[in-house]
């Protein structure tokens, strides 16, 4: 395995692992705060039980997220020293802010987890809100730093070095807003729907279980609107990419030949050698319309760009199709669930919806992984879009396949343990029915 590929793989594994826990760390606090608030308002103890259990699950996932995040902050320097040497001063600002947000989150999570009996209910709820807000902010800042790699602004590049660095302008880069919006919504949608799916499964067998019914309603309250809004934010992101990273857009769509009135391709397999995407369903004018709001707009194809500036087209295209496909399914299921809730229907009577929610459970996380593949692999061969190539940034350290395999093994092991622990926790959920709870 070449060192560059090993370094990229290690970074991908670390990021792919961390993002799962980071998303839970962003969204789960909101769920537990909502449950706690409902308990305080209604005095229904099932909600308190729910908040306790969710807090416990959050603690496990947050801990793994915290340590894997620490690893990432080091890996930037360990794997990409030349990148950090040039970019460190420019993206240091969002990383520092992220540090403070993370600190706030960790402190208040400690207060929340260990403070149930020590502080007043109101203060406890406030601590929970602080966790939720700072968790979201910490995600926002990290995504801003990543957005800068896609749309580098706030400096002048002179002789391979940045000069006139303006960290604020770098944070205000044009990719920041669409990416931040898309990722934050993704965290709420994925976490909300995975929790909904986990609680929908037992409801299929025992539809009167009060614990799972309440859990489902809170989870859908957070997850479903986010999932519904996600296609809109995705459209915003795609239009940013169309404007700023036309190569990435072309790879996402498997679009090789520049044309006016370009079709939208669904599925298919891009053949880089032949310069065409085979077996795709083509919707005429679709791409031009979506990317530029004009059915006859010209969309540049990959063949108009130098070959050495192409990302791995097949990976990006397939990942993008997976994200869009699964995301659409999540949006549809969420729309159905929200409609039923709005009409005050009993969700548990609609077994098809419960089944659809169980099916949707893992999709948010698959979408997130696929989305990050689109962002990161789609930016290749650049580490800073248009400025610095990934190959120039990698460490001269040889034998990078060793740390790659070690960290992969470590994370695989941790993943299995976490999954098993969560499985255990779900198995232990209470069996009280609606009648008992009342």
């Amino acid at each position, binding site marked *: 395995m070449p060192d560059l590929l090993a370094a990229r793989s290690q970074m991908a594994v670390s990021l792919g692992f961390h993002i799962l826990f980071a998303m839970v760390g962003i969204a789960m606090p909101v769920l537990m705060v909502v449950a706690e608030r409902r308990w305080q308002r209604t005095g229904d103890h099932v909600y308190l039980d729910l908040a306790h259990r969710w807090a*416990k699950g959050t*603690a*496990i996932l*947050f*801990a*793994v997220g*915290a*340590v*894997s*995040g*620490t*690893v990432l*902050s*080091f*890996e*930037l*320097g*360990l*794997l*990409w*020293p*030349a990148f*950090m*040497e*040039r*970019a*460190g*001063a420019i993206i*240091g*600002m969002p*990383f*520092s802010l992220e*540090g*403070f947000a*993370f*600190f706030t989150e*960790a*402190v*208040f*999570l*400690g*207060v929340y*987890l*260990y*403070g149930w009996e*020590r502080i007043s209910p109101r203060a406890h709820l406030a601590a929970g809100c602080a966790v939720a807000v700072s968790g979201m902010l910490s995600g926002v800042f990290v995504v801003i730093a990543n957005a800068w790699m896609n749309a580098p602004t706030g400096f002048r590049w002179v002789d391979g070095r940045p000069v006139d660095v303006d960290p604020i302008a770098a944070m205000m880069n044009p990719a920041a807003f669409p990416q931040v919006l898309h990722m934050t919504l993704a965290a709420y949608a994925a976490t909300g729907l995975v929790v909904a799916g986990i609680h929908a499964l037992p409801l299929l067998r025992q539809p009167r279980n009060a614990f799972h019914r309440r859990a489902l309603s809170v989870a859908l309250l957070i997850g479903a609107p986010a999932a519904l809004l996600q296609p809109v934010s995705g459209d915003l992101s795609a239009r940013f990419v169309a404007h700023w990273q036309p190569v990435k857009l072309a790879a996402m769509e498997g679009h090789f030949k520049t044309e006016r009135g370009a079709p939208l391709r669904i599925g298919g397999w891009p053949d880089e050698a032949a310069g065409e995407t085979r077996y795709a369903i083509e919707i005429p004018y679709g791409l031009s319309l979506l990317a530029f709001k004009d059915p006859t707009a010209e969309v540049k194809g990959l063949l108009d760009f130098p070959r050495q500036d192409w990302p791995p087209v097949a990976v990006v295209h397939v990942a993008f199709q997976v994200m869009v496909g699964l995301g659409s399914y999540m949006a549809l299921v969420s729309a159905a669930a929200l409609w039923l809730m709005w009409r005050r229907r009993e969700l548990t009577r609609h077994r098809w919806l419960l089944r659809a929610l169980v099916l949707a459970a893992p999709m948010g996380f698959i979408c997130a992984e696929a989305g990050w593949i689109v962002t990161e692999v789609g930016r290749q061969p650049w580490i800073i879009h248009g400025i610095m190539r990934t190959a120039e940034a990698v*460490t*001269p*350290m*040889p034998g990078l396949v060793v*740390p790659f395999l*070690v*960290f992969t093994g*470590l994370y695989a092991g*941790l993943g299995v*343990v*976490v999954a098993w*622990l969560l499985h255990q926790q779900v198995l232990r959920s209470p069996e009280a029915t609606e009648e008992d709870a009342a």
Partner: protein
Amino acid sequence: MTADLGPAELVAGCALLALTAYVLLGGADFGGGIWDLLAAGPRKKQQRALIAEAIGPIWEANHVWLILVVVLLFTGFPAAFARLGITLHIPLSLMLIGIVLRGSAFTFRSHYGPGHGQEGGEGGRTSQHWGRIFAIASAGTPLLLGLCVGALASGALTAPGHAGFTATFVAPWLTPFGLGVGVLTLALFAFLAAVYLTVEASELALREDFRRRALGAAVAVFVAAFGTLGLAHLGAPLMGRALTTAPWAPALHAATAVAAVTAIWALWRRRYRADPVGLGAGPVPLPDPARPDHPRGGGPAHHPGPGPLGPRGRGARAFPVADLSSSGVQARADPVVSLTVFSVAVLFTSLGAGVVGAILGLGGGILLVPILTIFYGVDLHYAMGASIISVIATSSGAAASYLRTGLSNLRVGLFLVVATITGALTGAFLAGVVPTRWLELILGLALSYSAFTTIRQLGDELPRDLSADGLAIRFGLEGTYHDLRLDREIPYRARNVAGGFVAMYGAGVLSGMLGIGSGALKVLAMDYLMRLPMKVSTATSNFMIGLTAAASAGIYFSRGDIHVLIVAPVAVGVLAGAYLGTTVMARMRNTTVRKLFLPIVVYLALSMILRGLGIHLL
């Protein structure tokens, strides 16, 4: 020299503060893992529970300091950060694995903690496995952190050129100095955690457990700090020089010493609550969010010194060279502080050497000579002279008190002293005839073996086998002493008397030929061969070394190597230290004494092997 305080210094200062905060706050968490690993005694379970409870709410938040260091480094010093990322790739990666493992293992374990114990045996065992991983990763990570900081301080992180893999990616950080900083970090973290846990413990017995551990760790910190400072002169010359001769050094070391003494005094006197005066020197603690009434790091928990890992105070307590050139004591050209400061410094050092010497039966010379020569710039001859006086002083101070408590056995001592002196005479006669390098190698290997066996019997409080030995009965080499720790009379009897006598003769020969102190060899022979209780061994050794030292003192005195300016504070300090040491030792466990003795044996073994290979540490 005035430093310009530009933005670079400001950022560096912030990074240093953040690192200090990580070491103080996160260090206590790592230290908690170390004590989890070393949990022992009847309250093993409660100790672990206290550790889990104490670090549970805060360990994640403490990561922020490390992240802050990283961010400040790459924002402020991107080129340096890139260099670090390349040359320290291996230790940093290993450290990350440690951080991941301890964090997740701790969380997984607490998942099975109180409230989830109902699954019964299986959950308990799984929990134990995670506890093990947590503890081991907690102990390994500080070592790696220290290695990295040590590499940074050494100035050896050169540009990755065309040198080989080892030269670029391994050699800069895998150095004796780096290892020293690693061990110092480990000791510091253990000390911090133990102090923190004494404050956190609500149960008296548990608090005593950690008080004892804190005092033990303080000794470890003391030893590691001096060792590291010594290594700094070889491994990080810039740092070593700055720590001994810079104008701010006296103030720094004085502050460190005051903080350390305050902390240890507070532990000793069981003053667990912060007294406002003592807080002044300590860093501002981060309040523990979940329990506002327990200020973290308050009082005795404040760290002895401004920053154990920053480029400045790595906990070393040396004073700069005194202006003694006029009196001809030392030849260094850059006198810095007054005679008074020098005397006070030597006094305190000797106090420490006296304590250690009295406990371990070594006379303190093994510590005093390197400290005087390396840190105070005293000429080796004067240092040796002072060491001889120190040995006599320890012996007089300690032997009297040990004889009273029955810890030292006069018969055993006299019996063995005959062997040693005969051996020493033989050795002096043989010197120059036999090639010493081979002897040094063999002795080094033999000591390594005995270090190994010492490790194996670390846990034995008292010798198990009390069967009779013909010679022991004939010479009456037996006795009883009242063990203050176990609070009962301990009868003991020497075994393998002939072997011990031969070994003592050998020890004498070697010390005569190689010019090394034989105290450590005597203790080893009594403890390992003759199976005397460890405390009896070191107490008896204390008595014996005085006899031999008194003989040599005359020679040194006639040569003019006994300089009153050095010897006066040494004698006073060592006497007081020895008195203190005997009081401490009478209340210690045999196993503790043996644990303290082990590093000395390891050091001797290493230095002998190195000398045999032609490398002289001093």
